[in-house]
């Protein structure tokens, strides 16, 4: 039994060192179906430095590094003047997905890591998913989740509207 406990401990340590970021205890995920092809929708949401085009709360996005290379940083300026600094963690254009973390923000959260992914439904419809893990920081878990979910809903609604057939 002691051997088993030791093995479990070692396995836990290996898992912990294998991930670069502490995984948050909370998770939020949203998805919408967008009325255009995966390739076309990716042109809008696949650019790590173009959140200022498709998220209504983001007025400006400025990039340091290459928008497709891990380590790139985007500085987002919001409508109220607040800024959010984010770092690109993974980028895969072939799989139409990227993930990023928040380096600095006024949001009441910590350990935030998010992924945006597009998956084709058929030739003219695309499933867009936006998910994250994080911890609340100074607010309740429920409040933190509501804030993040609200951000996703606003962005995804604009993407859906952009491709809505007239």
């Amino acid at each position, binding site marked *: 039994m002691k051997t088993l406990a030791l093995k479990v401990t070692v396995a836990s340590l290996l898992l912990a060192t294998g991930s670069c970021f502490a995984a948050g205890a909370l998770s939020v995920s949203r998805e919408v179906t967008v009325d*255009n*092809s995966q*390739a*076309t929708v990716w*042109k*809008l949401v696949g*650019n790590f*430095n*173009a959140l*200022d*085009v498709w998220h*209504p*709360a983001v*007025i*400006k*996005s400025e990039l340091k590094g290459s928008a497709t290379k891990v380590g790139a940083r985007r500085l987002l300026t919001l*409508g109220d003047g607040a800024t959010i600094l984010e770092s690109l963690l993974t980028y895969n254009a072939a799989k139409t997905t990227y993930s990023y973390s928040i380096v600095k923000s006024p949001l009441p959260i910590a350990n935030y890591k998010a992924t945006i992914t597009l998956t084709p439904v058929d030739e*003219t419809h695309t499933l867009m998913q936006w998910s994250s893990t994080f911890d609340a920081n100074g607010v309740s878990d429920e409040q933190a989740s509501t804030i993040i979910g609200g951000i996703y809903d606003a962005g995804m609604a604009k993407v859906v509207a*952009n491709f809505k*057939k*007239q």
Partner: protein
Amino acid sequence: MNSSILKIAAASLIVAASHCHAEGAISFSRDITIDRSPATVWKYVGDFNAVDLWHPAVRNSTLKGNSTKPGAIRTLKLADGSELVEKLLAYNAAKGSYTYTTLKSPFPIKNYVSTISVSPTADGKTLMTWSATFDAVGVDEDIATEWVGVAFDGGLGKVSANFEKPQ
């Protein structure tokens, strides 16, 4: 006097030879002020292969070549199923401008050469300009111009709406 006429004729030939494409007789331009910086607006409209993002009549754009290099060709599939094939003639990201010509189009126009540009206004907004020269084919010039005007207005309207501040 003969010498002078000859010089003018020679100058005209040189000017004509410097154009790669026949210039259309009709010239048309529309512009709109957008409530956002040129850098941000350019992300939306500056990709030669992304008119499927910002023009309501364009469903898909596929590219052959490099979207920032002259010679690139985009095929636009329109909402009604028809196709446009267009070729990039000039691209200048620093100036926020590109120029293209139509190779194949369902519209009654030819010799179409068009430029899209974004430039800063004095108050930090963006002036987006879309201009073209072309000839009418089988229709009155007014009709051909109307086609182009409707196309420009559709695109410019969507770009402007995209950057309107949420209420």
